[in-house]
């Protein structure tokens, strides 16, 4: 609970810094807030509390996912200092919106009632509609914001219809009561099935799982790159964590119903994500499509629904978040420096003058592909293990093919960086940026070598 309060309060404190006109304080205050929240969060480990009339359930699952998300938030905040250097308007408001949105993300990992799930999704999304459009004079940013808004509100309406149907059948919003109702009834009524379908579809919208991904490439490309990083990491992890919590805590008795939906999600995410990514010329768009394919891998952990689901999903989320943040960070620098549209060519010859950046990008790409030593390898390994144990071998074979296709576009960047010539110079980056990159790369490698630290947690 203190985690939530700290995050929300940090947002409000940041708002007040507008009065002092001190831009230098912003990032330190934000990071202090996030670190305090992390400390409070970890102090909840092994406590298992049910708060406020069963509205919230803080257990190891929520603490672990909150920690991953707070780590991502801190890394993104470290990147933000250099990113917002040229901007002089509304910067503190943008930071506070980031924190408010993060409050919603924290609610999503620890809800125990449909009301909290609903408020969590909305608190996470509504600041994001604004953040996506925060580059006010760029028409692309406007468009991204509008598309995200219409799709998001549409998904909200569908979600509410689903909750209404579930409420109509069971008469309760409480997760455990709904779960009891489902396990008590022999035959799940068609209204209940429809309700589950609508709820899963609407969360599929939020995590950009194909076939409900169509907004994602446009929104990811049009939004400011830092906001895209946030969307691709924190928002996606929160949505996936909420989905697993919902399906295990509430709809576990109806597993046969929603597993078919997820199968379709996974196959389509692999196909559309990978083939979309191969065709792209812009790296930002490629990363957007690759994040759709990563959603497929994460859903693979959920569809397995056994004791390995949570831990493999946690590990995958961590490795995916770190690699994505590192990749987007390098992209921000390259894009700013070349002042280009971030095509593959702008990465040419990066290794020659910026060996550090090239190395960071190399680890990120290897981790996304799933090459050993980086975290991505064991992430995929454990996810596959979980789903094979539940008898989804055919999905795992599809996933392996998808991972192999992934090599095509991830290695294209690596080849461009190391084997192509161009007259690039050293790119200037500030200290915060370097710290963030070092942390992301170090954890990717450390966790890749010693996976048992994370995998044994929950």
């Amino acid at each position, binding site marked *: 609970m203190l985690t939530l309060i700290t995050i929300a309060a940090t947002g409000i404190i940041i708002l007040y810094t507008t009065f002092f006109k001190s831009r230098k304080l912003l990032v330190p205050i934000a990071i202090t807030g996030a670190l305090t929240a992390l400390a409070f969060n970890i102090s909840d480990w092994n406590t298992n509390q049910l708060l406020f009339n069963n509205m919230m359930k803080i257990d190891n699952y929520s603490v672990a996912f909150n920690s991953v998300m707070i780590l991502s938030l801190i890394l993104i905040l470290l990147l933000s200092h250099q990113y917002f250097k040229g901007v002089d308007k509304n910067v503190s408001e943008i930071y506070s919106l980031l924190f408010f949105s993060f409050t919603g993300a924290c609610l999503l990992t620890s809800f125990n009632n449909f*009301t909290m799930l*609903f408020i969590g999704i909305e608190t996470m999304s509504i600041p994001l509609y604004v953040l996506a459009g925060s580059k006010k004079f760029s028409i692309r940013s*406007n468009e*991204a914001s509008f598309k995200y808004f219409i799709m998001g509100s549409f998904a909200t309406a569908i979600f509410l*219809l689903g909750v209404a149907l579930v409420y*109509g059948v069971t008469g309760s*919003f409480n997760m455990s009561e709904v779960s009891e109702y489902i396990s008590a009834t022999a035959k799940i009524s068609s209204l209940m099935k429809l309700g589950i379908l609508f709820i899963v579809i609407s969360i599929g919208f939020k995590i950009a799982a194909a076939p409900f991904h169509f907004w994602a490439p446009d929104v990811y490309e049009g939004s400011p790159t830092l906001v895209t990083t946030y969307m691709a990491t924190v928002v996606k992890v929160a949505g996936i964590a909420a989905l697993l919590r919902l399906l295990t805590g509430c709809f576990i008795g109806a597993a046969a119903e929603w597993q078919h939906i997820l199968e379709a999600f996974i196959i389509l995410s692999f196909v559309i994500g990978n083939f979309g990514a191969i065709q792209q010329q812009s790296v930002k768009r490629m990363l957007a499509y690759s994040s759709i394919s990563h959603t497929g891998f994460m859903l693979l952990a959920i569809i397995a629904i056994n004791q390995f689901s949570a831990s493999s999903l946690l590990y995958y989320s961590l490795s995916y978040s770190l690699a994505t943040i590192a990749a987007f960070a390098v992209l921000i620098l390259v894009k700013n420096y070349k002042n280009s549209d971030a095509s593959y060519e702008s990465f040419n010859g990066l290794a020659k003058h910026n060996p550090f950046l090239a190395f960071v990008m190399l680890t990120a790409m290897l981790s996304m592909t799933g090459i050993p030593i980086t975290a991505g390898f064991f992430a995929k390994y454990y996810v596959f293990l979980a789903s094979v144990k539940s008898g989804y071998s055919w999905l795992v074979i599809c996933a392996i093919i998808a991972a192999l296709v992934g090599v095509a576009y991830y290695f294209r960047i690596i080849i461009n960086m190391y084997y192509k010539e161009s007259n690039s110079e050293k790119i200037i980056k500030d200290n915060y940026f370097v710290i963030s990159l070092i942390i992301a790369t170090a954890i990717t490698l450390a966790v890749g070598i010693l996976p048992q630290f994370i995998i044994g947690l929950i």
Partner: protein
Amino acid sequence: MDNITTAIKLIPLEHYVFLCFALFSIGVFGILFRRNTIVMLMCIELMLNSVNLLFTAFSAYRSDAAGQVFVFFIMVVAAVEVAVGLSILVMMKRNVNSVDVNLLNKLKN
């Protein structure tokens, strides 16, 4: 008060459910049918309202007030969504000078 209670007894719950589904479908249809973004926003409001009515009907027939409290939260979110959505529209209108959805295809190429 008694009259009202008899009303609930006389009208089957199914009729409320059909009404809400019809309103919801009109909302979905409207979003796909129209190009004017402000009308699309209104259709989303229509969808949210049909869900509100559905919740209230279920809650009244079950005599469980929780459903009506949930409607209260939906209203909160609807108000927030409209505020943000309209300000996005205002911003777009300043830059593009139109609220036609199809002008928004800069990102495609």
